[in-house]
């Protein structure tokens, strides 16, 4: 690893100020489970690395007026153990559990998983399916965007170099919404997703309401399957229709062909995973 200057601000405010002053010659280090690996392999080391892993403002999971606030610096282990997540968004616990192994989940953060923005990120689909939003702070203040607007491309987000993602908000309307996440990798432990998927839904009068379907690892970024959602929205629950929604979702993805799996295998997986996550969410939902 090449040398760099290391700074560790003690508050969010001073981190933002330093970012403003030093960008674009500064990079942010949180859990380090992705970024330190990058730093070891690249010649393109920034002048300064700013450690935000101990900023108190980025910690904590709290109920707020407009939903559930998850600090960007919360680790995957903390998500798995949190009673509010268990109560309001248990699918996130399952998603966090599929990330890396215990040693990486103890370090890696949910904010880091999102801003690293690899297409196979396992935090993405569930949060997208729950209409999550993120708070981004820069020197001109805070802006709130939908999580899907954060994702631009592989390892590319809409964050500016002087901005920090500070919080993830699950809106009130999604709290307790029946949802399911499913990851398919080549092994049980420490595998990248070939495909991952999450669905959430309400059932009203026996029909789908506010259905959300999100898939990862099969497009440049985690995506919502808008056509598949539209196909089912308002229709009566029916296994055949769910299966067809899985097929429609395939048309919305652009999976790659690589050494882990062929494109056609990934396409088959999309249909299966979308179908399974919808059916699992139906099982969780109140049926009146």
């Amino acid at each position, binding site marked *: *690893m*090449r*040398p*760099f*200057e*290391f700074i*560790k601000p003690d508050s969010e405010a001073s981190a933002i100020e330093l970012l403003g002053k030093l960008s674009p010659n500064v990079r942010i*280090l949180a859990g*380090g*489970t992705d970024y*330190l*690996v990058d*730093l*070891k*392999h690249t010649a393109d080391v920034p002048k300064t*690395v700013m*450690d935000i*892993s101990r900023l108190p403002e980025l910690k904590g999971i709290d109920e707020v007026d407009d939903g559930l606030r998850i600090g960007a610096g919360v680790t995957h*282990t903390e998500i798995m153990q949190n009673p509010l997540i268990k109560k309001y968004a248990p699918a996130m616990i399952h998603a966090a559990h599929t990330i*890396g*192994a*215990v*040693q*990486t989940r*103890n*370090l890696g953060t949910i904010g880091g998983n999102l801003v690293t923005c690899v297409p196979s990120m396992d935090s993405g689909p569930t949060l997208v399916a729950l209409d999550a939003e993120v708070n981004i702070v820069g020197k001109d203040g805070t802006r709130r965007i939908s999580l899907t607007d954060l994702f631009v491309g592989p390892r590319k987000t809409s964050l500016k170099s002087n901005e920090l993602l500070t919080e993830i908000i699950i809106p009130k309307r999604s709290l307790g919404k029946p949802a399911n996440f499913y990851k398919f990798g080549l092994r*049980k*432990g*420490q595998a990248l997703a070939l495909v991952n998927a999450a669905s959430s839904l309400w059932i009203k009068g026996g029909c789908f309401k506010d259905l959300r379907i999100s898939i990862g690892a099969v497009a440049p970024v985690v995506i919502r399957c808008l056509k598949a959602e539209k196909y089912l929205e308002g229709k009566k629950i029916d296994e055949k229709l769910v299966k067809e929604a899985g097929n429609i979702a395939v048309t919305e993805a652009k999976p790659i062909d690589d050494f882990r799996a062929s494109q056609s295998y990934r396409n088959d997986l999309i249909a299966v995973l979308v179908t399974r996550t919808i059916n699992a969410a139906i099982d969780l939902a109140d049926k009146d």
Partner: protein
Amino acid sequence: MADNREITIKVNGKDMTTYVETRLSLGDVLREHFHLTGTHLGCEHGVCGACTVVVDGEPIRSCLMLGVQAHGKEVTTVEGLSKGEDLHPIQEAFWKNHGLQCGYCTPGFLTTLFSFLENNSDPTEREIREAISGNICRCTGYQNIVNAALDAAKVMKGS
């Protein structure tokens, strides 16, 4: 430009201070500055688990934390498990069950299981396999390691 810092880490119960380059991993600091060579660096990119140490009660990969990030924290390495010549029950169980061959991965398994068994006094075999899913052994396979963990759990529960 090299950037150096003085750091103090409580390692195995003892405050240790050194002056390190900021780019050095915690694993390298433990081995090269504190001469605690029980921590083994394997893949050095967060996959093999050989370098696992316990930081503030949680097992982490010492190749994925900078030494400067560990400033002010408490670290337990494999050297901190035994009491002098008395092996920790997990070490004893690895020995009795032949839970190792070449031994390269062993410090990582021991520290991972140390942390796991401290918090789970009566684990199932499945839970143990899950707990060590971030540690790779290329010699023994995992059967004897799992047997050792089950044995150690019994001993630790009784003590």
